[in-house]
């Protein structure tokens, strides 16, 4: 029961998890209308990384390098990020139902994106992302200001988040109903349900960078998160600077959620279910839980997105629809298991 061996013992597990993630990404890339082998994937990626000549025809090379690889990597980053945000918010807010969207960030993002689409500000994917990001930040700022006004306790944050969620969904519906034509509505809807179809290398790089930074911040606060188990006073009595920790972690998760939502739309349930699944496997200690949830979320979303783009070929199912279809039964099973264990 000594801790140093415990820590060392976890290393092979992380290695195995990363291996599983790499294998999942590689396997997912081979799946699709154009049949591509794992070997071709490795050789193409290797060639691009070394900067040498493509080994396949330009079309097949493009499918791997410009379509499937960024999309799969964005799925992995997005899944990991949402799961990490879910872990942090559930622990910090002491609410097992908290997820990355409880801070109102996703509904703010959709309002921002819809405004860009409907009002035709700018044009193209970049301004859509920018609009979504601005909306997300605005919604979070509103939630933070409101909850501070109401006393600043964490349960207020949850209530204000729910209020903001309702407000911004109403705004979104209002804008869509009054201003959008049928074609725009369809585009907006697809985006609201979440999609990784428009993944680009820029988005992958930005999202991955923010994910790494936020994960590092959360890991640095992992013992403080453990101390929140019995509430804010208990955490303070254990030496945690509650106000600072709360602010840092809320802002970090809101930033990560905003970045993810602005490139993929609102992909539901990953941030709610995966933390519970990871907790059921590795326990509630955050130094282990955070990386485990990140890995589980990454592998999960890679496969769900692969299913989303291939089950009703050639049509694409919005990935958010599939995550919920899979997530709800999984959620019930997990909750049932933890109930019987008590």
């Amino acid at each position, binding site marked *: 029961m*000594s*801790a*140093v061996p415990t*820590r060392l013992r976890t290393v092979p597990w992380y290695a195995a998890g990363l291996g599983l993630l790499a294998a999942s990404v590689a396997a997912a890339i081979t799946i699709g209308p154009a049949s591509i082998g794992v070997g071709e994937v490795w050789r193409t990626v290797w060639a691009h990384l070394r900067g040498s000549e493509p080994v396949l025809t330009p079309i097949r090379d493009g499918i791997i390098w410009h379509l499937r690889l960024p999309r799969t990597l964005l799925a992995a980053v997005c899944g990991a990020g949402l799961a990490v945000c879910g872990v942090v918010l559930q*622990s910090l807010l*002491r609410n*097992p139902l908290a997820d990355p969207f409880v801070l109102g960030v996703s509904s703010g993002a959709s309002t921002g994106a819809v405004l860009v689409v409907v009002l035709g500000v700018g044009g193209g994917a970049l301004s859509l992302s920018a609009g979504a990001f601005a909306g997300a930040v605005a919604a979070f700022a509103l939630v933070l200001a409101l909850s501070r006004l109401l006393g600043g306790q964490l349960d207020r944050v949850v209530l204000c988040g729910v209020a903001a969620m309702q407000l911004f969904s109403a705004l979104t519906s209002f804008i869509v109903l009054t201003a959008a034509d049928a074609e725009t509505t369809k585009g907006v809807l697809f985006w609201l349900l979440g999609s990784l179809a428009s993944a680009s290398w820029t988005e992958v790089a930005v999202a991955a960078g923010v994910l790494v930074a936020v994960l590092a911040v959360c890991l*640095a606060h992992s*013992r*403080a998160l*453990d*101390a929140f*188990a*019995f*509430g804010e*006073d*208990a955490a*303070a*009595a*254990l*030496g*945690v*600077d509650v106000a600072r920790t709360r602010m840092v972690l809320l802002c970090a998760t809101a930033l990560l959620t905003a970045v993810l939502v602005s490139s993929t739309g609102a992909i539901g349930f990953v941030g709610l279910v995966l933390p519970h699944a990871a*907790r059921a496997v590795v*326990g*509630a*200690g955050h130094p282990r839980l955070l990386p485990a949830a990140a890995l589980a979320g990454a592998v999960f979303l890679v496969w769900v997105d692969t299913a989303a783009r291939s089950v009703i070929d050639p049509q694409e199912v919005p990935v958010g629809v599939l995550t919920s279809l899979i997530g709800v039964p999984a959620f019930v099973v997990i909750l049932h298991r*933890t109930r019987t*264990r*008590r």
Partner: protein
Amino acid sequence: MTLAADRVTRAAGGHLLLDGVTVACAPGTTLGLLGPNGAGKSTLLRLLAGLLAPDTGVVTLDGDPLPGLPRRAIARRVAVVEQQADTQVDLTVLDVVRLGRTPHRGTWSAESEEDRTAVREALAATGLTDRADQSWHTLSGGERQRVHLARALAQRPRELLLDEPTNHLDIAHQLDLLALVAALPITTVVALHDLNLAAMFCDHLVVLRGGRVVISGPPADVLTEPLIADVYGVRAHITHHEGTPHVRFLTAQGDQAVGKSSTRTA
């Protein structure tokens, strides 16, 4: 010197919870806080723990004002057992006790030999060694209170603050827990409802009413029939046994004693 509150005041919603309270703990002794519900016992404990800041006045630790000390430094000295602290997280007894090492551990450092010893000793002192792997959610109220005490002991504090730690405990567990706390070589402040338990286990008592100190001193001086009538509005008969006062409550009508439990004053 150890923990001391100097003329602390705290208001909430236009209502004074504490009004110029001065309390000084003697090192290594057990100080009991008494008073009816709403007298300000919990608020005073929260101020002493630095969880709440006084509106006026100052709380000091070894003479240093608390606001000037980092939270972590305070938590290495002062441990708190709240009235009732529950969690939804699936934790074992060992997990909870380990939380007590939080202020002693670095961000990235693994558990040290000292951490392990402190946790082991805290479990042993509270008789929980065999239950280390039991789930928190399967524990009774009394067992949870003991786990919280073990967690507080794992902090290796020099000051221990307890807010009605014997609530929800049967009489055997009340005696166990207070005997354990009183025997610790650390400075303890404990809010209690039971006057007899306070008389048995505290070296010094402070009686609060409406946020003010009514009287303070050794139990034999503080617990008098007029004081109990004045503060609690209850008639009592007090006998002394080897210097320890014993309180027997009387009904409003006659001199009939109504049982031994002083919790009726609550």
